[in-house]
């Protein structure tokens, strides 16, 4: 393994690695928090309470029943908390490292479980109810085989994780 750079002192190398890991941890946490917590939190605390106000501004006599949507966003948020932790730790390891690959696989498995839980294992009956001018329209859907396909397509991402691991492994071992 050729090294084009001048060798650095072991202490500085360890400090650099630690800084990279901390940065990765923080970035991973932020990115995961935005998706898993930020979005549902905004929907529950800002969009849902003010939706009727928005409709009135547009002179629309339109109401949405948020009950089941609220539950969906709650599941999204609460199941997302462990995903933020997993995401943070995953990003804290450099690409090409064995720990990164293992954490990525665990994170992928966790995201599949998260997806199933948020979708209520396919039972989205009475998902949304819209009332307009006294008439109510409801939509409910139960995902059967389609849910399995969603899990399959998500699980196929392991091929990509393995590909990244293979591509980045040599760089990681070279110390870049």
């Amino acid at each position, binding site marked *: 393994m050729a090294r084009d750079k001048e060798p650095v002192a072991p202490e500085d190398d360890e400090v650099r690695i630690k800084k990279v890991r901390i940065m990765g941890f923080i970035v991973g946490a932020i990115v995961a928090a935005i998706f898993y917590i930020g979005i549902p939190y905004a929907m529950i605390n800002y969009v849902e309470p003010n939706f009727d106000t928005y409709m009135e501004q547009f002179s629309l006599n339109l109401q949405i029943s948020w009950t089941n949507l609220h539950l969906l966003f709650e599941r999204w948020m609460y199941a997302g908390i462990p995903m933020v932790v997993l995401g943070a730790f995953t990003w804290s390891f450099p690409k090409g490292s064995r720990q990164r690959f293992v954490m990525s696989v665990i994170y992928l498995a966790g995201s599949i479980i998260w997806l199933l839980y948020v979708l209520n294992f396919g039972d989205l*009956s009475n998902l949304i109810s819209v009332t307009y001018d*006294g*008439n*109510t*329209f*409801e*939509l*409910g*859907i*139960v*995902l*059967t*085989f*389609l849910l399995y*396909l969603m899990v*399959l*397509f998500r699980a*196929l*991402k392991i*091929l*990509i994780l*393995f*590909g*990244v691991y*293979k*591509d980045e492994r040599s760089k990681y071992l070279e110390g870049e």
Partner: protein
Amino acid sequence: MKAVTIAKIARLVVIIAVGIVIAIPTFAGIESLKINNGEFVMTNSIYEVNCMTAEDLATNIKDVTNGETGYKIVYGGQTPVDVPGGETTEFTDLMDTIKAEGDAHPDDPANGKYYTATLLDKNGAIAKQQTIQGSANLTQYIYTGIRMTESMVNMVKMSVVLDSVVNDKRITISEPDITPMGDSYRVKMKIPYLTFASAIAAGAADNIPDEKKAKMGLTIGVEYNSFFDAKFRLEVPMSKFFQGEGGGSGGIPDVNLKVEKDPHAYDGSNPEYSGVTVNEEIKIKADGLSGLENISGSIGTFGDGTAGVRLEVDATGQVRIMSTGNDGSGNPLDLVESIQKSRDSNGDLVINPDGGIADPITIKADQVDSLMEMAAELIELYRGM
């Protein structure tokens, strides 16, 4: 080529392959994508009014007889005939005979048809009296406008349910039979007219909040080849089907529904048998009229005292409105006529519960008008069977 690139391509290939496998039956099933203005075309509508079928008659009778013989059935001309105890097909002849007897009865003052069957047990006592409820058969052929193969049509399972929602209680009115036929679907819906009207009446009570008044609900379910099962539901306030003011639901009458009229129902005139007299009456399902259980009331007479209307509520909450007046010869007045004669100077109907155990119940004039219109319509519908 990088490993990640190979991995992405492999993943994409798998997704596309799965998609193709799933999509092939779908697209193979569509012969033509020509859409007729994007609408479903209703063709060959058949609207017919039928009374009870032989199967319904058999079921009702067998509930009592358990298939045993020795029972008799009395109808129309009060000629008891033996009740079959065997297969349902045996009731077909009986049903046809009942209908023919109804057509041929010479003394029917309404000059119409009636179908009330009285079941007599082995001792000659009345075991059951059944008035046949009319229903409207609505058959629609839905032509999708997208020509599909029969296998494609069979991959999609559709279901339709028509119901009413009153005070959060859902009552099914009809679950039509949907049959794939070639490249289209046949939707055959039987709407019990009287059940439909009873839902309207039940939802109009004053003690129900406006947001819980009667609504008509239509649920369409689409199940596609075990991939998903979606349901679309539309609820429309029933008040939108009526014009005018009044009531808590914008024109829905407070009381209505289910005409049972049979001036020639078995009346016990034959000394060999005991019986009851059935006056023309309207029965309603009073889901919303809470507090009226265990009371009964009668409306005061009007005019010369020959006209009267009685309101009764049984333990199940079912309300009956009956004409108690007669034309002087003993023949009961038409309920519509009796109601009309019982209205006060304001056009209202006031029910004074017996014994004063509840406040008077006032049916406002405009509601009475709607009641009479619907009662007349129902009676005509009944007579037209």
